[in-house]
């Protein structure tokens, strides 16, 4: 083995170490027996995991987060799929502009977006908290939907669309019977990616949550402000596990190479 490849190995190890070490620390600390978050932990206990389920606000906000993410993702899919289709299928004036508009929410800092949404949805339009949250989440996840669906449409053979029409299907029927089934994997990937993003979102939710309605990540922030026990570490571990399972499903159905494009 020469020096160069040894150097590279060390470098790769360091990168992985700094990426994964905090997660490993959280994981281990969540099983600690003491009342505060320490590493390495003294003793072993599952009580902090049990404690998550005892705190009512976690249960409540988990359900709200779930609801918000699922409904938001579905709305974003309904808006995003036709948009992605139009952007990749047709050439029209201002296509670049629309592409930019749809992708801009990922470019604008979340905190800026969150603040402006607060100003216009809650203060100006006087929408209720839940609706505002939903709109905010739809806005931040639409870019992911459009991005993923567009990439699956980029290999789409539009001649099968013409084939379907030549056999007697109109445009709408063709979309549902021929286009949609063939980008199914893209739709699943977009759903999961958008769901994860919505579920984990902090900056938008931070501004839009209010009395009685909060999301799980926000509730976790609040919890950490007042308590420094391993409950939050235990909850983080559960959320990581959920994300890992979803990613595993994507990997199994599509392969992660889907996102490397």
């Amino acid at each position: 083995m020469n020096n160069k490849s040894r150097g590279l190995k060390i470098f790769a190890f360091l990168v992985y170490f700094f990426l994964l070490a905090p997660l490993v620390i959280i994981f281990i600390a969540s099983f600690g027996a003491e009342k505060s978050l320490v590493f390495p932990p003294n003793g072993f206990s599952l009580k902090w995991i049990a404690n998550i389920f005892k705190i009512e606000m976690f249960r409540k906000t988990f359900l709200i987060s779930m609801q918000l993410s699922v409904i938001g993702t579905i709305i974003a899919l309904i808006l995003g799929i036709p948009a992605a289709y139009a952007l990749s299928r047709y050439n029209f004036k201002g296509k670049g502009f629309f592409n930019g508009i749809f992708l801009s929410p990922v470019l604008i800092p979340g905190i800026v977006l969150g603040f402006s949404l607060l100003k216009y949805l809650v203060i100006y339009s006087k929408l209720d908290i839940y609706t505002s949250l939903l709109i905010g989440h739809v806005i931040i996840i639409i870019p992911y939907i459009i991005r993923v669906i567009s990439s699956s449409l980029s290999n789409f053979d539009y001649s099968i669309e013409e084939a379907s029409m030549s056999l007697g299907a109109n445009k709408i029927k063709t979309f549902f019977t021929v286009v949609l089934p063939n980008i199914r994997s893209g739709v699943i990937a977009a759903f999961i990616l958008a769901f994860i993003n919505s579920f984990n979102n902090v900056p938008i939710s931070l501004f839009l949550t209010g009395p009685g309605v909060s999301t799980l990540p926000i509730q976790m922030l609040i919890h950490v402000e007042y308590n420094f026990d391993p409950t939050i570490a235990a909850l983080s571990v559960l959320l990581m596990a959920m994300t890992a399972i979803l990613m595993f499903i994507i990997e199994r159905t599509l392969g992660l190479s889907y996102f490397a494009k």
Partner: protein
Amino acid sequence: MSLINLEKVTVAYGNNVILKDFDLRVEKGDLVSLLGPSGCGKTTTLRLIMGFLNSKSGKFIFDGKDYSNIPVHKRNFGYVFQSYALFPHLNVFDNVAFGLNLRKVDKKEVGKRVSEILEIVDLLDYEKRFPGELSGGQRQRVALARALVIKPDLLLLDEPLSNLDAKLRVKMRVEIRKIQQELGITTVYVTHDQEECFSISDKVAIMNNGIIEQMEEPSKIYNYPSSEFVARFVGFENFIDLKLVSKKEASYELMANNKTSFIVDNLHINDEIQPTKGAIRPDDLRISNIGLNEGTNTISGQILVRTFLGRDYQYEVKTDIGIFIVNHEALKVFEVGENVSIYFPTDKIILVK
């Protein structure tokens, strides 16, 4: 009245005019091929008939009715794509049944008709396979079956054989012709393969730059092209500029630029065209040692290049009215640089515009 009437159709993308005042007539039951180099507008014509694109002006009359504004899905035409365009998420049976299901044909009838058509294209045991599991030839036959099973009023084929290997191409074209004749279905076939289209068509339309140069039976086009473009397309490689001197019954006397006179007496001279050129195939020119032949229809020249074709040698002969390509049996060999005379048989010269 013909089944298909395209009348003065113009198709353009922006400023790029593909078809201009284009006319096409196809009789019921015929297989008509559109043949031409890429970019000549043949696929555009086919897509226009199917309704995939709209014309800027002109009319498309089908079976006496104006189809210009009827959308694709209401035309009941079968279309076979160059890429086959099978539905990747459906198996062979469902691909073929797609059009029938849209027509709300009942389940039993669908099963029966799909089986019938799959039997015709010899794919009966492949019903459960997906397009990804089929060979090119099998996909092509599924595409054909899918287009035929709806009993279309018109079958449109866009270079259906161009993705197959040479052997399969010959087999499939015979197959297509057989099915077309059995079902008596009017067909428009687009191809750039001359042999393919000549072998199966009732009529061939040679297209160039958005117009039909000539539309006739294959043998007529092959033997008596009416323009230089068509002549080149069907293998006339030699052209001489000629001026008409006198016209007699079934025989013309003409003169080349170097004052050599040419007699042309084939019986198929097209009276309607003003001939400006004579065309002849390399196989029909006679090459001989200089001096053996002199007089009308003969010019002399020098051999520039000799290539071996197998049965023949091909010579490029330089003369004072241009370079001619001559094939001659390998039994007698002429050397490069040798002076020879070339004789143009009077019945082998075709006059073109």
